[in-house]
């Protein structure tokens, strides 16, 4: 009896445990991706705490999010193929909080390259999409980002800064990038898909003067994820975990019944 109660109690606790909180937060982890957005830096190897996490990353390449334990980490960026020896191009310590998502972007021209750690949002409000612009073009002026033939979405965003996230109705939209306060278009970004429940960072990368040229790199910070894996089984073909409990219960009832019978016999 006690065992069945315990099993039910554990099941209740587990059920409440899964509401809210993603798995990686429960594991005291953070998610980080590395982005190479430096227009003139060579291919790089990236080390976290002395171990290589990506090798040969070129400009305009990025990793998917990786899970790392929450806390302080040392990130070093070396020219590719040097075994992580010699002087790193970037050496930076970052503090990651559990349950958070970060992008670590190598930005700026090589002679002033740095690692820019951004906090990435993870959720959009019900029925909305979230979008921001990330200015990672070393020689572009402050910019406004507008919907073509429509509203200004973000204004006066400077290099190595981001706009706030804006919540918008889900849509596919043509965007234009202009020098702040100007009507001139320096960059067109057609067909940006903003899906419900998704979070986007649109990076402006490259150079206004020279190559690689200024362009947009829309990135998904978060998809519209479920909170839990689906219930895709009903038990008709599975081993069951409470057979031992039932056997014990059955045995206990039998023993109790036998005990009562014997006692009755004695007193009769």
């Amino acid at each position, binding site marked *: 009896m006690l065992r069945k109660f315990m099993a039910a109690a554990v*099941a209740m606790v587990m059920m409440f445990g*899964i*509401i809210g909180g*993603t*798995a*990686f937060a*429960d594991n005291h982890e953070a998610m980080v991706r590395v982005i190479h957005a430096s227009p003139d830096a060579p*291919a790089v190897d990236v080390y*976290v705490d002395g171990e290589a*996490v*990506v090798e*040969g990353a*070129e400009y*305009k*390449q*990025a*990793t*998917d*999010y*990786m899970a*790392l334990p929450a806390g302080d980490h040392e990130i070093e960026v070396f020219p*590719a*193929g040097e*075994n992580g020896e010699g002087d790193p191009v970037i050496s930076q310590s970052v503090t990651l909080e559990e349950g958070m998502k970060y992008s670590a972007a190598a930005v700026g021209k090589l002679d002033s390259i740095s690692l820019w750690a951004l906090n990435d949002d993870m959720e959009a409000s019900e029925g909305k999409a979230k979008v921001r612009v990330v200015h990672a073009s070393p020689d572009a002026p402050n910019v406004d980002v507008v919907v073509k033939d429509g509203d200004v979405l973000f204004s006066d965003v400077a290099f190595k800064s981001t706009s706030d996230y804006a919540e918008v109705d889900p849509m596919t939209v043509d965007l234009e990038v202009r020098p702040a306060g100007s009507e001139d278009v*320096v960059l*067109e*970004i*057609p*067909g940006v898909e903003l899906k*419900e*429940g998704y979070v986007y960072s649109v990076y402006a*990368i490259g150079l206004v003067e020279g190559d690689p*040229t*200024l*362009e*947009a*790199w*829309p*990135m*998904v910070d978060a*998809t*519209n*994820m*479920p*909170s*839990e*894996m*689906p*219930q*895709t*089984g*009903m*038990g*008709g*073909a*599975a*081993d*069951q*975990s*409470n057979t031992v409990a039932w056997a014990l219960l059955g045995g206990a009832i039998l023993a109790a019944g036998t005990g009562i019978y014997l006692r009755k016999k004695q007193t009769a």
Partner: protein
Amino acid sequence: MPCKKLLLSMLLLGAAAGCSSSSSNQSDEMKEVLPINEYTQLVSAPDITVSSSSKSKESVEPALVGIIPAQLSIPAINVDAKVEHVGQLPDGQMDVPKDESNVGWYQPGAKPGERGNAVLAGHVDNKTGPSVFFHLGDLEAGDLVTVTDEHGLAYDFEVNAVKSYPRNNAPLEKVFGTSFKSSLNLITCTGTFDRDAGTHEERMVVYTTLVSE
């Protein structure tokens, strides 16, 4: 069609050879897996922008286009199933197909074939016996999975790995989260059935990636 697949395979091999020749001569220890290494895949930004008129026009490469899946075929385990669209239950859990002999495509996620994680879920069993994904765990790396839309356009995916997780500690970000790769993840229940909780104790994920269109 076979010619196209051969050409694509050759291109992929050529690209892989190119990648390996540019990496340094490191001992195998360097590539040895920390848990984080398995997440690192490099993918390039899609070129979807056009410069302003004062510069020369760049060629615009279209992003990978996905399909709305209608049929799922996995010859290695004799699966040929219809695909329903599923979303989330009110509490946020991924929903399941109405007919348990079908599989369910997670509609808020990626379409099979486009960048991102496309997810298909199927039942391992029903109340009386095995169901559509009962043999999912028999899949091995290299097995092919084909998804077709209602017009007959098909994408092939190749199995990379089969993993099982405790049901409350599955890596949702890895299965459903953002990715630069074009992946199709097949999920079902596995492990012991916990009759008190009314569900299997584990979840299985078969990770596959796009190989051709």
